[in-house]
């Protein structure tokens, strides 16, 4: 009951912010339309709808970090959390209450991206459902990263770090916009050490029915998700104690 009340509040705060809707839903859709239009005129295999859509869904999920971080940081700065810490809400209620409501928002974003892709010619197959299901650990990674950043940084810092830096990192190091092998060298090595390219490759593999190819990418994604969730819990509890 307590967790539900706090979760509903989290969802309302996020969904009622028009900027969140514009970036979370609108921006990925614009990118799908735009890059599909480019692909129609100048064929690039990377922007074929079957390769482009998984990449855009992962890129779109990076905005979940911004949502989670901005809300947590704002709550800390506005003293709302201070008030709630004096209520019977437990640490687990807070952590789940911030993270869980964003998960359906993230999955809804994926579904909207795939519906758009179907309109643009993506064949309807059961692998779309698998791709949405495999987006769950990717979503949890980005949401937990948001909780972690919101527990550590101020609202202003969150805007810069999660809004500008992270989205650019995901854009450049995920292989969504260009083939990472074209750059190669250290750039490719760094990209391979981060979870973004693995999340994109995993989603591409599952969507295209190449089930064996989700490995080893899924291990990278699950490993990073587990690590970031753990750090998010530790840092949230730390700021809770510091309050």
């Amino acid at each position: 009951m307590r967790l539900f009340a706090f979760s509903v509040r989290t969802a309302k705060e996020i969904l009622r912010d028009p900027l969140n809707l514009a970036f979370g839903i609108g921006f990925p859709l614009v990118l799908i339309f735009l890059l599909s239009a480019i692909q129609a005129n100048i064929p690039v295999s990377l922007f074929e709808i079957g390769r482009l859509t998984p990449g855009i869904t992962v890129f779109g999920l990076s905005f979940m970090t911004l949502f989670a971080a901005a809300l947590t940081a704002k709550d800390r700065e506005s003293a709302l959390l201070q008030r709630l810490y004096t209520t019977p809400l437990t640490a687990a209620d807070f952590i789940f209450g911030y993270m869980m409501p964003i998960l359906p928002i993230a999955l809804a974003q994926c579904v909207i991206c795939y519906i758009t892709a179907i309109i643009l010619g993506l064949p309807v197959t059961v692998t779309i459902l698998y791709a949405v299901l495999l987006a769950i650990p990717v979503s949890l990674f980005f949401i937990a990263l948001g909780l972690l950043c919101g527990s550590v940084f101020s609202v202003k810092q969150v805007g810069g770090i999660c809004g500008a830096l992270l989205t650019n990192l995901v854009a450049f190091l995920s292989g969504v916009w260009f083939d990472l092998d074209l750059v190669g060298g250290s750039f490719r090595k760094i990209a391979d050490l981060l979870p973004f390219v693995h999340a994109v490759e995993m989603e591409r593999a599952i969507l295209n029915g190449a089930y064996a190819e989700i490995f080893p990418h899924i291990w990278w994604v699950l490993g990073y998700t587990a690590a970031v969730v753990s750090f998010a819990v530790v840092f949230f509890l730390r700021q809770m104690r510091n309050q």
Partner: protein
Amino acid sequence: MEAIQTKRLTKRYKDTTAVDSLDLTVHEGELFSLLGINGAGKTTAIKMLSCLTRPTNGDAELLGNSIVKNAAAVKSIIGVSPQETAVAPNLSVRENLELMCGIHGFSKEKKENKTAELSEQFDLVQILDKKAGKLSGGWQRRLSIAMALISEPKVLFLDEPTLGLDVLARSDLWDNIRSLKGRITIILTTHYMEEAETLSDRTGIMKDGKLLAIGTAEELKIKAGTDKFEDAFVKIVKEASK
């Protein structure tokens, strides 16, 4: 049983002692003010009493429950309205009140009754569907106190409730606070002399984390040998600085 009894309650931050061996007793149903200039230790004292921060030394009991050993029991009997605005800005006034009802595990019926009762008591009826973030400072503060009262607390902490409000908003909020007097124990921090004198049954004067004097407004004036409460405050604080 006393509402609050502190025993050498102390909070240190590195080299600074924010609250220094505070021994204080607040009776049930009393409106007690902690008065002091900025940095006197009022907010830190309230943070310890409301289990937001652990004391470095000492302890306090709220209706017999230790803030150190039984924080959960303390949290179930207190309401807190923090110094800064503590409302959910994208939620309406009604939703803010309902949020607190949900957090305290109220049934649907109790939630509706409590929301209606507090909206009435704090004149929030006409703005129930307005977003909290769009309200003026005075209305937000009023909502903040109403939210603190949702759980029917036995002890209510109001940290600088009228800070930054205009004269009319302050007067309205004083009426709200007066209407609660006697029904629950209220601990109010303020640096407005008039607020402490007008509203409180007793006042404690703090400086540099220490409780310098305690008593009714009249007792403090007599103690300082002054006619005005403000003069009494200034004299007590200045004498402590010597």
